[in-house]
């Protein structure tokens, strides 16, 4: 379903159906439909659904050219693919539309050779015509976690980056970043931190990444590693080759989850969710100097019922918290 607001989320027009997949829609703990739009009225929605009994998934795309009044019939990102989940969309200043996703083709090929490979792979492609065709579709990392969202920031002209939960030697599900070119050609992935979370679980909690005007990479993530547990933040001034020591977010003894980061010029915002058994709160810390120092934490919103992940988004110079709660409904709070 999709619903449109023209008053910054205070009210919405009647929702329209984009596709119907019933219980086969991929609505797992970290799987959400993605939406992106531009000033010309073009909107794209990407989502995944399970297409067979073996839980192989397909990513579908649907687009609008009239500010979301009408949408095209959904079509697959990959025709006859093995399995694709967790699409992530990004639009750069040249109106190239990037999409990253978790792809199972490598795992499948290995299985055919009798080699058992865990996890999935990270794939990337871009479109110069708003999804009519995709170029440079390829696997940028053949081994990754298969259960977590991918973070993508392509807003800076020189530094496009993705962050995801990798799958390193020995089954270590630590985080990686990969910087890539305007044509989606990536550098080698680098580790954000040596958390050493050697595990065979589905964490269902991917990272978030943002690039500031100084080309600083800011990233936040969740881990239950041997070296640290909880939510963490780190930055890199050299395109991910080195990261600052991880800085813990929130209270290590509390239930802290779903971190998200966004950069606007030299300002950086981090939000995450804290739960005390009765209330879920969205916490925030802010930096005005590109991550060199941070404000103390602050409660932005709270609810006593079910709530979704807190997200940050920007529109022109304004930065907003987007949060959906069952009791209060959709909330869009301006942060600057």
């Amino acid at each position: 379903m999709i619903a449109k607001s023209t008053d910054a989320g205070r009210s919405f027009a009647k929702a329209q159906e984009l596709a119907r997949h019933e219980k086969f829609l991929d609505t797992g703990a970290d799987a959400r439909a993605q939406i992106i739009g531009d000033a010309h009225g073009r909107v794209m929605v990407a989502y995944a659904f399970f297409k067979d009994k073996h839980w192989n998934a397909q990513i579908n795309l649907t687009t609008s050219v009239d500010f979301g009044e009408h949408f095209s019939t959904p079509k697959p990102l990959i025709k006859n693919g093995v399995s694709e989940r967790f699409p992530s969309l990004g639009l750069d200043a040249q109106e190239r539309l990037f999409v990253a996703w978790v792809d199972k083709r490598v795992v499948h090929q290995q299985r055919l050779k009798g080699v058992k490979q865990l996890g999935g792979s990270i794939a990337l492609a871009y479109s110069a015509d708003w999804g009519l065709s995709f170029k440079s579709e390829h696997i940028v990392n053949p081994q990754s976690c298969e259960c977590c969202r991918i973070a993508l920031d392509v807003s800076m002209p020189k530094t496009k980056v993705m962050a995801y939960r990798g799958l390193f030697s020995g089954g270590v599900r630590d985080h990686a970043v990969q910087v890539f070119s305007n044509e989606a050609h990536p550098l080698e992935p680098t580790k954000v931190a040596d958390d050493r979370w050697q595990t065979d679980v589905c964490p269902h909690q991917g990272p978030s990444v943002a690039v500031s005007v100084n080309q600083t990479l800011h990233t936040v993530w969740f881990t239950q590693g041997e070296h640290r547990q909880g939510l963490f933040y780190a930055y890199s001034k050299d395109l991910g080759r080195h990261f600052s020591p991880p800085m813990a977010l929130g209270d290590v003894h509390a239930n802290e989850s779903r971190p998200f980061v966004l950069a606007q010029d030299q300002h950086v915002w981090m939000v995450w969710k804290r739960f005390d058994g009765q209330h879920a709160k969205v916490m925030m810390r802010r930096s005005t100097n590109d991550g060199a120092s941070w404000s103390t934490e602050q409660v932005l919103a709270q609810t006593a019922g079910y709530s979704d992940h807190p997200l940050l988004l920007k529109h022109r110079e304004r930065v907003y918290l987007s949060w959906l709660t069952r009791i209060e409904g959709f909330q869009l709070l301006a942060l600057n």
Partner: protein
Amino acid sequence: MKMMTQRTRSLILVFLLTFFAWTACLSQSVGMAPYVRGDWEKLVDKRGSGPLVVHFWGVSCGPCLTEMPQWGQFIAKESSRVLFVQVDDVSKDITANLVKKMRIDKASNYVVFSKFDEFLRFEIDSKWQGEIPYTVTIDKHGVQKAYAGNTNFKTLAAWFKKNI
């Protein structure tokens, strides 16, 4: 409010009877019970005086599905002491088919009917973020422990032996 006619009342009664018969038939055929927020204590009460293991898994979780056949073999010996809770929001038939395929249908199986959210998880472990597979063990003294990831079934068998 207008009084309902006899015909309307009969229709409602037929509908309700059909509905209850259908749901009873469905749950009997798939052998699964709903699990919602607030159910943890009731589930733990099933322990009685012995040990109990509750295994949380999801049909779309690769590591879970890889391990489930081993749970199937394990519960052939310990079925009355292992409960399974499937957390993904999928159709009941899909879960039921997998439960049979993995041979855990002889055990007690539950499916999360409310959201698998922090409220539901907090009752079990205040810091659990939802990673699966996730297993909770409660020993004969009622001491509860939990771990995420695959199970060492030899260790679990020894634990049962010690706690019976």
